[in-house]
């Protein structure tokens, strides 16, 4: 009897061990596949042109050519592009969060006629890509003399329908009694939004803030159109431009193009690693709402 249960125990342990090992192995494979493009980008950026074009590609550069980076920097001012992108992205994110919080409050807790009909108007905005409506928008921005300015880069993205949608869902889940209590203490709307709702929905706020940051960082079409000089160009354009400017010699200059890509990607990866605790905890609570 004792023996039997012991054997069963061992078997169960072994089964659990096998499944654990299997889980680690499968997960590791997935990780390798996901990391590979980034790895390939980095090592391609360090190879010589000759090594880059070998019929059998090498997994580790035979000779590190750091000059690719200075060459890429000579072609496009990545520092400047990085600064522009950061300012633009931060601007978009803050405006979206502030205006979005107000709107989400109005659409979830506010009471005014036509509230739900107007919310449909917001949702409708989700469905219209800027590539479609960009001609009139460009006209307005140009008339305001906002071409090549941060205002031109930021304002047309200052409100996100997606964010209002997300925040409204979350604000809705907050019990009205909290708001009542605050109101009885004489708190106004701004207080209620920023002292009650926002702190209570911190994970969602973090998540939508991050999504907004990613979208801003990734935005490509509008910055490309609204900047006609390198003065306010952003980093996503910078890499593409670098590729273009090799004028058909991209193949042998892939190393420098990849160097440009590394410079565009590394800051965002560093930011991600630093903030990952907040980022992941934000996602873990917000998404299921």
């Amino acid at each position, binding site marked *: 009897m004792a023996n039997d249960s012991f054997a069963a125990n061992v078997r169960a342990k072994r089964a659990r061990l096998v499944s654990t090992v299997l*889980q680690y192995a499968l997960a590791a494979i997935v990780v390798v596949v*996901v990391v590979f493009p980034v790895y390939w980008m980095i090592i391609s950026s360090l190879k010589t042109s000759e090594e*880059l074009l070998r019929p059998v590609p090498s997994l580790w550069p035979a000779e590190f050519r750091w000059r690719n980076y200075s060459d890429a920097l000579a072609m496009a001012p990545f520092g400047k592009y990085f600064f522009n992108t950061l300012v633009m992205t931060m601007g978009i994110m803050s405006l979206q969060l502030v205006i979005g919080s107000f709107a989400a409050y109005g659409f979830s807790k506010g009471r005014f006629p036509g509230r739900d009909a107007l919310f449909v108007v917001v949702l409708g905005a989700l469905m*219209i890509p800027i590539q479609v409506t960009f001609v009139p928008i460009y006209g307005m921005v140009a008339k305001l003399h906002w071409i090549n300015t941060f205002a031109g880069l930021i304002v047309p993205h200052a409100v996100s329908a997606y964010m209002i949608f997300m925040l409204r869902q979350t604000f809705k889940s907050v019990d009205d009694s909290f708001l009542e209590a605050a*109101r009885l203490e004489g708190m106004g709307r701004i207080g209620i939004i920023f002292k009650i709702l926002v702190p209570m929905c911190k994970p969602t706020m973090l998540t939508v803030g991050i999504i907004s940051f990613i979208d801003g960082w990734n935005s490509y079409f509008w910055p490309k159109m609204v900047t006609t000089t390198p003065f306010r160009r952003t980093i996503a354009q910078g890499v593409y431009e670098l590729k273009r400017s090799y004028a058909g010699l991209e193949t042998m200059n892939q190393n420098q193009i990849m160097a440009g*890509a590394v410079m565009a990607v590394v800051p965002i990866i560093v930011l*991600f*690693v630093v903030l*990952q605790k907040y980022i992941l905890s934000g*996602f873990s609570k917000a998404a299921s709402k």
Partner: protein
Amino acid sequence: MKANGNAITGRRGASHRKREKAKDFLCVAPALAFFAVFVYYPLVDLFRIGFTNWNLIRDDYKYVGLKNYKWLFKGSGFDTWLASLKVTFSYTFWEIVITLAGGMLLAALFNRESKAFSAMRSIVFMPKYIAISTSAIVFMWILNDQYGFLNFVMGIFGKEPVAWLNSERTALTSVLILTGWRVVGYGMMIYLSAMKGISKDYYEAAELDGANAFLRFRHITLPLLSPTTLFLFVTTFIASMKVFQSIDVMTSGGPYESTNVMVYWIYDLAFVQFRVDRAAVVASVFFVILLAFTAATMKISNKSVHYES
């Protein structure tokens, strides 16, 4: 709310309520004003342009009635339109499949509490952060017919090199490879966080009832994740129908329009072919299609989603 309502009564109460309503409205006013200026005015303008013969650079144009609509529905635009719709929907279908099924599978695989797994989860999620235009350039290099790494690997397994981005058979797949790389970790993250929210009691009860892992997944996890699935479905649907960047960088809608998704076609009509009038009609019709599909999705799913509470 009721207590408050009773406390304030009479005429003062009515005007107070009016003022409160106005204040509530003021909260949404900035956002609404923004949408009016940056979304709906351009949209109305777009509908208007659809009835003209404007080419975007001429100062003058005429109203031509339904000519552009005839071109789209009865003229030479029809075949391209159908093809473009097909490409757009098939791209969207696969992006949704990758996000939902891939995300769910990875969530099951990575659902383990340990430092190593937490690190690995972060890594799998990371591609979402990398600008599409940048990763597209990296993938173009990996997918290059002659010097790309992928064809080299295929060669090891004795396969002929594939003209990934340059053949109509594989171009959409190639773009989807990039998409998959970007979104699968995101789907996983969203599902994982939802799974954490499911109470352990359900599983313990089910285990006592003798339900195996598959049954537990099928009857507990899956239904309880349905709000998350709906969320992912709707947001992925809307985003992927509007796909543009990866197409613009990797294929320009080609080869032979095999990746000519709707937004890219609209853009191409307006800026390459000087036909903003036609672009406006395509865009208007596309907007209506998107609206109808999203409304239908919301309606159907409202009935079939399980909410925990």
